[in-house]
């Protein structure tokens, strides 16, 4: 009995020893993933301080409570030949241990209230970004004049992580840089500016969370929630969706690149130029090969999660291989992709005309469907 107790105590101190020794290394790799990051925004500092304060109070109370328990376990045992006492109440003590915790709670409530008031103070922001959750990607829209208004893009898991995370991919995740925490198009924001973040979703609940910014908030379809960030130093900050949103909930990371004001302006100009270049001449005719290869890409990042990499379908999600839609009338197929149906999202806003034409063509001719027809980007506009 005594030996086992010692063994347990030993294990415990080893675990805590590791914990304390590694705390300094923050959120690095290995055993360093231990504590809430202090973060890079005023809110994250306040919340980290609050967390450490409450944790400290709990540790102190814990030491007292467990200390008394351990003393009692050692000294008040029958094998020591003690006679049990007979007392079964003590009003003074009972009042004391009701009042005392209450006072500690009041002491905790003050900083908690202050921090919460700060969290809710979204006034005087200089920039607004709208974040929309989709199954399973994020859309970022810049709403402020002069600070990127008009920029609008989707952000999904990067291709390397996506390849490695497939069941049976045989790719070692440790060889993938920022595995599951990397995206194709990160959100880019300027440092040292109070930015209001508006959150919503189109399909199910999501939650936008970058731990270094100090908070998360739910994105709710049909409603708008908000929060604010003011990042002190340029850098790259990573987070994830935090509200279960279906099959690929674990695979819709958030990456925020924080730039100096100057670099941000450059990025805005570059991004606008890129966005304009992306608007392809609607009159341009694409060859079947061009449509198929583009379609394959679009399919992999937008459709495969539900309909399967080989169009084989998955549970409630129907197969595309041999489906009535993909082998039926072309315009019905395009309309389904554009407008969605039941749990299938509308892709009207997610895909441009070229991408829509390509993916529809790919679905009709890939997976052994061999329908033989195709559609040009110019014809998509007519069906919108």
């Amino acid at each position, binding site marked *: 009995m005594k030996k086992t107790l010692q063994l347990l105590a030993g294990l415990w101190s080893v675990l805590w020893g590791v914990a304390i020794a590694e705390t300094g290394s923050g959120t*690095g790799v290995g055993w360093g993933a231990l504590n809430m990051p202090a973060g890079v925004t005023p809110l994250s500092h306040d919340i980290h301080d609050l967390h450490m304060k409450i944790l400290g109070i709990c540790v102190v109370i814990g030491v007292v409570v467990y200390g008394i328990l351990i003393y009692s376990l050692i000294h008040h045992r029958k094998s020591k030949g003690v006679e049990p006492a007979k*007392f079964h109440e003590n009003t003074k003590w009972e009042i004391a241990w009701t009042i005392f915790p209450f006072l500690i709670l009041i002491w905790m409530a003050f900083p908690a209230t202050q921090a*919460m008031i700060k969290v809710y103070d979204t006034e005087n922001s200089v920039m607004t970004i709208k974040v929309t959750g989709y199954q399973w990607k994020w859309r970022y829209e810049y709403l402020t004049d002069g600070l990127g208004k008009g920029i609008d893009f989707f952000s999904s898991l990067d291709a390397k992580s996506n390849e490695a*995370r497939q069941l*049976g991919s045989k790719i070692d995740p*440790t060889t993938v840089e920022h595995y*599951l925490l990397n995206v194709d198009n990160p959100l880019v924001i300027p440092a040292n500016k109070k930015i209001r973040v508006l959150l919503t979703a189109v399909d*199910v609940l999501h*939650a936008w969370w970058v731990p270094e910014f100090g908070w998360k908030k739910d994105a709710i379809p049909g*409603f708008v929630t908000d929060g604010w960030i003011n990042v002190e130093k340029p850098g790259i900050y990573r987070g994830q969706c935090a509200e279960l949103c279906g099959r690929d909930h674990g695979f819709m990371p958030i990456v925020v690149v924080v730039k100096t004001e100057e670099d941000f302006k450059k990025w805005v100009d570059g991004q606008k130029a890129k966005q304009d270049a992306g608007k392809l001449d609607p009159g341009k005719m694409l060859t079947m090969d061009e449509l198929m290869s583009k379609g394959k890409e679009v399919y992999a990042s937008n459709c495969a999660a539900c309909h399967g990499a080989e169009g084989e379908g998955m549970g409630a999600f129907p197969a595309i291989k041999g489906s009535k839609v993909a082998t039926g009338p072309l315009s019905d197929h395009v309309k389904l992709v554009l407008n969605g149906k039941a749990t299938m999202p509308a892709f009207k806003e997610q895909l441009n005309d070229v991408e829509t034409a390509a993916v529809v063509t790919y679905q009709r001719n890939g997976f052994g469907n061999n329908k033989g027809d195709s559609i040009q980007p110019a014809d998509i506009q007519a069906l919108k």
Partner: protein
Amino acid sequence: MSATTHDETHAHGDAHEHHDHGPAKGFMRWVTTTNHKDIGTLYLITGLIMFFVGGAMALVIRAELFEPGLQYVDPHFFNQMTTLHALIMVFGAVMPAFAGLANWMIPMMIGAPDMALPRMNNWSFWLLPFSFVMLASTLFMDGGAAAAGWTLYPPLVLQTGNALPFTVFTVHMLGMSSIMAAINIIVTVFNMRAPGMTMMKLPLFVWTWVITAFLLIAVMPVFAGAVTMLLTDKFFGTSFFNAAGGGDPVLYQHLFWFFGHPEVYILILPSFGIISSIIPTFSRKPLFGYSSMVYATAAIGFLSFIVWAHHQYTVGMPIAGELYFTYATMLIAVPTGVKVFNWLATMWRGAMTFETPMLFAIAFVVLFTMGGFTGVMMSISPADLQYHDTYFIVAHFHYVLVPGAVFALFAATYYWLPKWTGHMYDERLGQLHFWLTTISVNICFFPQHFVGLAGMPRRIPDYAVQFAEFNALSSVGAFVFGFSQLIFAYVIYKAIKGGVKASSEVWEGAEAHGLEWHLPSPPPYHTWTEAPAQEIISDLH
């Protein structure tokens, strides 16, 4: 296997009470029984079976999370596992096990011959096996089982395939069963106490169950209503939770947690009662602060109704709501603290021995308190903006539910098993079970605090590589924990089969702690057909 027990019980019962009639023979005995002990046994065995079913699902989860990357299951199946693991552990393992203890012990503890409504008692049990078969069958349906988490949040849960209505009907049946069990307990305790057994003399286990029963009656209909609204949203064109039709998905969360928060106390209050029975016995002292224990339980029960939205700090409530729910939630620490201090004071200057029930009870006090600390941390709404939906939360609620509720059930089983079977359990195996379980449960859940704080969201089948080491450790703990429970099942089996005969008192000095220790071990099929003598009741403390 339990038939043996009761055949012996029968013989024993005849020896003591000659005009007594024993149980019917064979399988139909268990189908038609209205005996509180038989029904208690059925509940307990169901709880144990479902504990292993839910545990197997947990091991699927922990196997997939052993290392980064997807190795074994599709993410959609993973989500079905997390959903069913929780539903089965809550409604299939812990709640039936507590109902089983209530059925076995409450009549024996209050000096009543049986439960007040024995036929309804039979029905409330027999709804369960059918519910769980139906729930399990959803795994094989088109689209798989519900995969939106045990909270069944819309709109995600509305993407469930054919399983949705069956999941909802399961909830309805489980709710009916719980409400009937709750009514039965309340009616029994209020009407069938032996003369002299006043309310303030009731064992704490009975008190905590009465308060639990009121919680059940109050909140199960709310849950049933909320899931019915899901059903009509999905199939009958309503828009309770659909913004496009004027509804609100967050409304569901308020309804769910108005049920869900009292529900977590439904899972823990009877544990408090069990621990309050065991610690005095093995400390050889009366329970410290009996009346403050009763008031604290009632206070926790009341507070449980007014704190629900602390599960929703991130939905964007008005700040007044955030602050109100923060303060109200923090208050729970006061009565819970009173309980912990009272247990410490009960042990203080006692003459403790450390048989398996006491070991589990002490581990409960230590580890439940740990869950209480993280609970206080999470009540602080700004900090919860970081903790919410991470593994920190997973660690917290597993600390209060596994070394909390489940340890209390282990403690109760070891404590009363000699009474039920008439045989002492194997103390050496019991201690082995205790140490393996206690060490592995901490290896499993303690590291989850770290990864949660460092940024690992819950309900994900795969994770970034910086979380790998602690997840591997956690999975090792989970597997050791899971397989250690086979020892528990074997100890029960062995005690039913035979062993050292238990006296009626079983534990030294236990007679002073409850009426059940004045009955033979095992007790006859019908007990307290005549009320216990006044002096027995007045000597209890």
